[in-house]
């Protein structure tokens, strides 16, 4: 950008440059504050790559001696995810109906619907699991309820958004024929929302498989218990097998859910 004879090209105006500089400054300041604030023992950071490599070494090769137990636990994990998703769907439909501006009967129900959506999303699956384990005792029942409750918010929100985006005209046409509320929903709203409904359910099922893997850590069923057990007894080679099992199931789940979504849309 020299101005010794010839044309002086200024790529960014002074205002733009100032704004960019300020933005960078904020980001760097936040990062410096964070790095200084976290409670980190710096020698450990330097040591970290070596420690990680050491752990990975101890994890190989995977040890298949408890493969049958692991597979059974993975199967239970899949069951938990599937049943929880189905349960959540049933519960989420009325919530979505309430949380959508155009179908909610009045302002209070709209607020209630939105409240349910936000609260169930705000509480993490693990915390739900702790709650249900405290009430119903350890086991997959607590896990199913935990995953289901967490999913209600996710499903409710997306389905409500789909409801809000429908074309009003079929609904008006239905209302004009004098149909009652239920029929208007069944014929005017539901067909438009159906593709999103399926897509969102399949997506949530895929996410729930991942969520269900950690339930066992707090006693709510699934593979988590075996994993925690293996870690606590330092059976690292069994840990890596469990991780491989989880990886395979999650990847398979992604394939299946991708395929299903294509079929449905």
């Amino acid at each position, binding site marked *: *950008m*020299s101005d*010794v004879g*010839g*044309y002086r*090209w*200024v*790529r960014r105006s002074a205002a733009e440059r100032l704004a960019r500089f300020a933005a960078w400054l904020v980001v760097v300041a936040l990062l410096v504050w964070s790095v200084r604030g976290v409670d980190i023992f710096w020698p450990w950071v330097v040591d970290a790559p070596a420690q990680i490599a050491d752990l990975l070494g101890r994890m190989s090769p995977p040890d298949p001696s408890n493969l049958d137990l692991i597979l059974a636990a993975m199967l239970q994990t899949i069951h938990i995810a599937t049943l929880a998703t189905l349960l959540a769907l049933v519960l989420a439909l009325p919530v979505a109906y309430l949380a959508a501006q155009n179908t909610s009967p009045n302002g209070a129900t709209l607020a209630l619907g939105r409240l349910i959506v936000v609260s169930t999303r705000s509480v993490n699956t693990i915390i739900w699991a702790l709650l249900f384990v405290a009430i119903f005792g350890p086991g997959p029942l607590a896990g199913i309820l935990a995953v289901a409750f967490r999913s209600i918010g996710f499903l409710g929100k997306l389905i409500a958004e789909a409801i809000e985006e429908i074309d009003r005209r079929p609904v008006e046409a239905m209302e004009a024929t004098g149909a009652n509320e239920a029929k208007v929903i069944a014929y005017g709203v539901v067909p438009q929302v159906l593709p999103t409904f399926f897509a969102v359910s399949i997506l949530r099922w895929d996410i729930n498989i991942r969520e269900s893997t950690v339930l066992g850590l707090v006693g709510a069923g699934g593979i988590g218990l075996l994993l925690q057990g293996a870690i606590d007894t330092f059976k690292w080679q069994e840990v890596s097998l469990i991780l491989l099992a989880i990886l395979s199931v999650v990847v398979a789940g992604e394939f299946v859910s991708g395929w299903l979504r294509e079929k449905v849309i």
Partner: protein
Amino acid sequence: MLEIQDLVKRYGDGDPVLKGLHLSVAEKSVTAVIGSSGAGKSTLLRCINRLVEPTSGSIRLNGMELTTLRGRELRRARRRIGMVFQGFNLLERLTVMENVLAGRLGYVGFAPALLRRYPQEDVDRAYGLLQRVGLAKYVNTRADALSGGERQRVGVVRALMQEPEILLADEPTASLDPKTAEGIMHLMRDLSAELSLPVLINIHNVAQAKSYSERIVGLRHGRIIFDGEPGALDDEAFDRIYEGDEEAAAEALGEKPRGPAVSA
């Protein structure tokens, strides 16, 4: 000067798209390549700068064989070949100045490219060329804010910034309305004369080909079946080139507008 000998391009096991072409392009001339789609026009041009890999044959640019180059030598050779595209292929989110300076990417290092610190003489030449084509006021405008004709002019300037020894234009006017198209053809013809630059243009509109070039090459099914002065392109030669492809023939005569129909 460009010398193509026995150029063959075959995709897979099918019929070759280019069947042993021989073509010589002298300095300082505008050569128009015409023919129906599928005749191989675009493939021919892209074989020259190796955007498409020739199957066999020889392409020599001012004595240097292009078909055997690899890596850095290939990139160095590409600097000497400027290309203008039908879709303009501008860097849409960058400004006009950044777009034309990108023509120098083959000459500057990574850091200057990243920081946009190009040599002053490049900046001067860029500005001069933008003035020449009437776009000086758009120096810091984003490329996607310009009209079709303006964008193509930016494309032409970018190609010229390479200081090329030859300019290839792959249907440069196909996405433009007739009046703007004429403007671009005019520009390329004038630049060819001003810079002593050989120009090779793929074009659909035969009338424009005849008006703005000194030589017409007609391609059909991967072979050159006509090579001569525009005046020599009579109806019989035209029919031979476009035989069987009535839509292309109509377009070539400017009877049918390209793209969405324009209501009368």
